């Protein structure tokens, strides 16, 4: 029976191939969309959870978007006076505050990072964002010559990295967060300042702004639960010279943008899917008329009505499953291409989907297309049941 199904499909190879390709394209688009949506959803959720700060404060003159600070790993050289930390800590409603100092690696070709990467100095005394990782380290702290690297940082091989001329030891690799941490190198704030101070490429900043030991790049603030974040943000804004960003607003904006983008992409994907569904149904509806002769002959030669139904369902399922398998490969390739592009942009949170998430997507899409295959085979299968074996007696040649 399998051989008959195979022969039946291969001898109409143009029809079969076009149906299979239509299914593959639909599955591919839907699968790639699913993976992207999953990656962004998990990235947003994890980023929001891991960011762990209600407000982000950066210098007002900084020519960068808050999204870039929060989600991109590219170097951001923005600085402000470090005494702001105490001033803001004194504002009513501020629960806790921690400074960060940004520097960057160089484009070194040997033994270090191949591209400039953001170096984040955090304050071990006040930080609550990376402490969960630091506590897991031997001794529960990060030494001055140690670094933590984000899960998406490339270029570091082995346990050492030469950063701005100094060899530092990799203490741990962070779990994916969906934020800029994934593309950053973290070190105690004093180490970061010391490295930046010695960098000939950053002297322009120190000449203008003074000693980096007194500077910070960003402040992360948690607000008391009973206080409105917007009220605290307004109070900080009143100090002047600062941009105060509510992280929840940033995530909400990104979510909204992503939803619009996904709706557009989903529309395209669904159109492709609907087109393939129509083609699939048309193909199998036409079988009921095209192949009466062949089915009549099979009946005369001993095929039962059930055999014919199996034959039709087998053809349909072979095409849907074959198309789905090709589609999953195509979809993954498409997703990988988009993923590479997104990694370059790094402008919004994204975490590569887990295996279980991918498998769920494969299962749901496969079940959907199997149901489609069964539905499309139903009509011709019903028609085949009406074919009498005696019809073979009156047939001419069979195409």
């Amino acid at each position, binding site marked *: 029976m399998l051989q*008959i199904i195979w*022969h039946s499909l291969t001898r109409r190879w143009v029809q079969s191939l076009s149906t299979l390709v239509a299914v593959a394209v639909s599955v591919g688009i839907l699968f790639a969309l699913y993976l992207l949506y999953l990656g962004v959803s998990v990235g947003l959720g994890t980023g929001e959870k891991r960011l762990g700060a209600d407000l982000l404060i950066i210098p007002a003159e900084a020519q960068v978007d808050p999204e870039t600070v929060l989600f991109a790993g590219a170097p951001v050289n923005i600085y402000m006076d470090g005494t702001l930390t105490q001033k803001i800590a004194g504002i009513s409603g501020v629960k806790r505050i921690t400074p960060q100092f940004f520097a960057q690696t160089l484009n070194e070709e040997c033994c270090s990072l191949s591209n400039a990467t953001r170096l984040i100095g955090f304050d071990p005394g006040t930080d609550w964002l990376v402490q969960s990782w630091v506590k897991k380290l031997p001794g529960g702290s990060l030494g001055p010559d140690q670094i933590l690297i984000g899960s998406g940082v490339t270029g570091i091989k082995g346990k050492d990295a030469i950063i701005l001329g100094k060899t530092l030891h990799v203490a741990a690799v962070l779990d994916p967060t969906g934020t800029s941490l994934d593309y950053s190198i973290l070190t105690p704030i004093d180490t970061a300042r010391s490295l930046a101070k010695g960098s000939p490429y950053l002297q322009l900043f120190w000449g203008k702004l003074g000693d980096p030991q007194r500077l910070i790049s960003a402040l992360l603030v948690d607000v008391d639960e009973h206080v409105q974040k917007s009220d605290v943000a307004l109070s900080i804004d009143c100090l002047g010279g600062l941009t105060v960003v509510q992280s929840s607003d940033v995530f909400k904006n990104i979510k909204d943008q992503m939803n619009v983008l996904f709706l557009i992409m989903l529309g395209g994907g669904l159109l492709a899917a609907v087109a393939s569904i129509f083609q699939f149904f048309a193909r199998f509806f036409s079988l009921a008329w095209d192949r009466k002769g062949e089915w009549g002959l099979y009946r*005369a030669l001993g095929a039962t009505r059930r*055999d014919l139904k199996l034959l039709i369902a087998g053809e349909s399922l072979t095409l849907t499953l074959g198309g789905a398998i090709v589609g999953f490969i195509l979809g993954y390739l498409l997703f990988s291409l988009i993923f590479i592009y997104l990694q370059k942009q790094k402008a919004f949170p994204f975490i590569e989907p887990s295996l279980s998430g991918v498998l769920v997507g494969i299962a749901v899409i496969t079940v959907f297309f199997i149901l489609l295959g069964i539905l499309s085979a139903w009509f011709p299968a019903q028609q085949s049941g009406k074919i009498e074996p005696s019809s073979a*007696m009156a047939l001419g*040649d*069979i195409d």
Partner: protein
Amino acid sequence: MLLEAVNISKKYDNEVVLKEVSLGIEQGSSLVITGPSGSGKSTLLSILGLLLQPTEGEVLYNGRKVSDLSDDERSRLRNRSFGFIFQSPQLIGSLSVLDNVLVPARLARKRSLEAKAETILKDLGLKNRLDYLPYQLSIGQKRRVAVARALLLDPIVIFADEPTNDLDPERAAWIGEFLFELPRKERALVLVTHDTRLASKADRAVQIIDNRVRDLPIGELKTG
């Protein structure tokens, strides 16, 4: 009796095609059904071959009533025990000669019959045509492929409906000789034909006249 029709009648709507027809065929013998066009020869062949249900009467195979079997059981019996050669060769155009012959085996889920199919085709003079498609064959070659397909599963009864139609006298004689060799190999042959020369080779011949069958003396056919 290997195969027997008992009081068979067949009506299409209100038109009577066969009326109280009874006949039988023994293993290793041949039966020819003749009659004018539209007299019901193919209908009788279809009923005997379990391709068509009679309106009344019954068909017995090895003494067992088979016309009342379920559709699936009749299908399996056709596949296992009967071979059919239709009026037109009815080959599937996009299958090779060998694959056309193998269709009944594949419906029976029997594998490893390629060698046997090749042997039958070789016996029928088609050794060098195994990979040909039907459109590349002459009508005589197509007929032989249809014969090979009918013989592949070693059927007990072969039903042939006008198997020499459209053939030149030489090819028709060759096919006829081949078919009438089969009963000698413990098979039975039921053949519908207008060809009196072919019919004269049978062990028994019947004619359908006015929806009923009557025996034709073989000698009459030979002289006629």
